[in-house]
């Protein structure tokens, strides 16, 4: 199936700004789904509110566009109800880790089989360029006219600490790499987190003098290095890309099935 067969084309052109990284990430995701040969009506895409969350409206799956920060909480209800469905949750940085931070760590702790994608452009784009918990210090934003003093989360470290059993990072520049990582994340039995660095030339780039989309994409290349690479060894200040954790641990829905089996047997006997 071609990638366009996974899209609800009547909603195109999409609402993302020219140069936004989110379209590239959507492309990487659809290619991963295509390569895995997943059936469209076996996928539920659940999202919250923000630029990234609009993905769910563009894809021809069961789509649940929920409330700001609540995508993983709603997705938990879907997954526990119908464990055979593939539940994929694209989120923005503010959506996933500010207002949705509690749901994020608890979904990770439960190790419920959901694929969480954090499309990190380090800014609230839809509301016009406020800093997010992933912006970090010394960043200009409409709510940080004198630059940010807030420290950022490291999504990868946070997800690992919270108990996610698959954790990876890539960028919008590394579209093919993203596809490979997303494939593994979707196949992984347990809670998987993929952080994909995205670019927001409209709000982040302009204010922070990072230039246009092309030069911002260039930064994804120059500021990151693969895990285990010489470049990363030489320059540990670079952001690492790759798969950080890939563990097997009891998955929540499978464990609950055991409870059902036990409770039903108890009742009969």
């Amino acid at each position, binding site marked *: 199936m071609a990638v366009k067969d996974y899209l609800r084309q009547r909603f195109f052109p999409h609402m993302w700004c020219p140069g936004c990284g989110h379209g590239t990430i959507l492309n990487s995701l659809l290619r991963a789904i295509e390569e895995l040969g997943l059936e469209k*009506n076996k996928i539920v895409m659940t999202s919250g509110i923000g630029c990234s969350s609009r993905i769910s409206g563009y894809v021809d799956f*069961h789509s*649940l566009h*929920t409330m700001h920060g*609540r995508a993983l*909480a709603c997705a938990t*209800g*879907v997954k526990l*109800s119908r464990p055979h469905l593939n539940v994929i949750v694209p989120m923005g940085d503010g959506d996933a880790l500010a207002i949705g931070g509690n*749901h994020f760590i608890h979904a990770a702790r439960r190790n419920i089989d959901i694929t969480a994608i954090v499309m990190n452009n380090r800014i609230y784009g839809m509301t016009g360029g406020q800093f997010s918990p992933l912006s970090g210090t010394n960043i200009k934003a409409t709510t940080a006219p004198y630059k940010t003093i807030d420290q950022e989360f490291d999504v990868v470290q946070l997800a690992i600490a919270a108990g996610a059993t698959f954790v990876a990072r890539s960028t919008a520049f590394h579209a093919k790499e993203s596809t490979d990582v997303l494939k593994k994340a979707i196949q992984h039995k347990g809670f998987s987190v993929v952080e994909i660095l995205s670019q927001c030339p409209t709000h982040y780039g302009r204010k922070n003098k990072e230039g246009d989309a092309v030069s911002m994409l260039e930064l994804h290349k120059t500021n990151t290095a693969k895990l285990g690479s010489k470049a990363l060894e030489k320059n540990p200040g670079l952001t690492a890309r790759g798969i950080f954790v890939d563990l097997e641990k009891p998955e929540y829905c499978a464990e609950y099935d055991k409870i059902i089996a036990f409770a039903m047997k108890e009742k009969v006997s």
Partner: protein
Amino acid sequence: MKNKIRFVQGNEACVEGAMYAGIDFFAGYPITPSTEIMEHLASRLPESGGRFIQMEDEISSMCAVIGASLTGRKSMTATSGPGFSLKQEAIGYACMAEIPCVIANVQRGGPSTGNPTHVSQGDVNQARWGTHGDHSIIALTASNHQDVFQITVDAFNMAETYRTPVILLLDEAVGHMREKLIIPEAGELDVVSRLRTSLGRDVDYHPYLPREDGRLPMSDFGGEHKFNVTGLFHDMWGFPSNNPKVIRGLLRHLTDKIENNIQSITRYKEHYLDDAEYIMVSYGSSARSAIHLAKERRARGEKMGVLELQSIWPFPAGLVREKCADAQAVLVVEMNMGQVFAQVKAAVKKPSRVFLGNRIDGKLITPTDIKTYFRVLQGRGV
């Protein structure tokens, strides 16, 4: 038959009603005085293949219920005041996206943390207007365990019939009190199943296109039809729309589907109401004291009766107007500062004859408390 008689708490009666109605998903967060609902369902649900999850907070519990309902499960959560406040965001989402679900609020004193282990009926208006924006809502209540059972079944039935969240507005006294409950045989009470679309795979399914009777057939997530669900104003396919016609149409639909069916939704009981000159309008545990007093007074030949409301929203104004038409005085007996009182005053022909008989100190209103109110309004001194 022997097994069908229980001596239980009101919260357990609610659980039994939910099981009878076919609940197969519950998500919740511990909170007094509703926790027993959650505890009992944690053990009961998996016995019948249903699913239970304790979530990280009240917000996520309501969200998980929404997700589960969309996959075709009969879903419920339970909470009390502070948790009910937190759930309002997602209750609004369920109103907008027309997702059947039941929210039990076993009321305690408020505002804020308030009075966790004591009774109150202070969330009546929150049940109606807790979430932002114009919408309509169904809120049901009951004063004894048999009625809690029945009204819980009704709550699930109405959620499915009207594709809407239904609030079960119980209170601490009813929730924690123990009394007899007779569980009806299967088939004795009506249980409404979800109305699912009969359209096949290649037919264009409109999840938000009401049938002629106003009902909207659903399709489960994971089924043949892939559609969008959103909290934005949306068209009949579920896709976001800014079209003024669509916005107006949806808002009207969300209100009309409930308000226009007030006759079928309204639940109430009459106690000694024929020819009553003094009428108490009450609900929940307050109604128990009102009924007790009316019985006592009738024995003495006084024409006193009780109109017990079991559905509070949409408010049955027509019913209240009709039943109270000939009353010399109407005393609204409740445990708040006059939330239903205001509705009754607005409903009747002679609002100057409506009085509030309340108690707001965390103690159950007693027949003696109500007697004092009557002494004053009958001009017999305090």
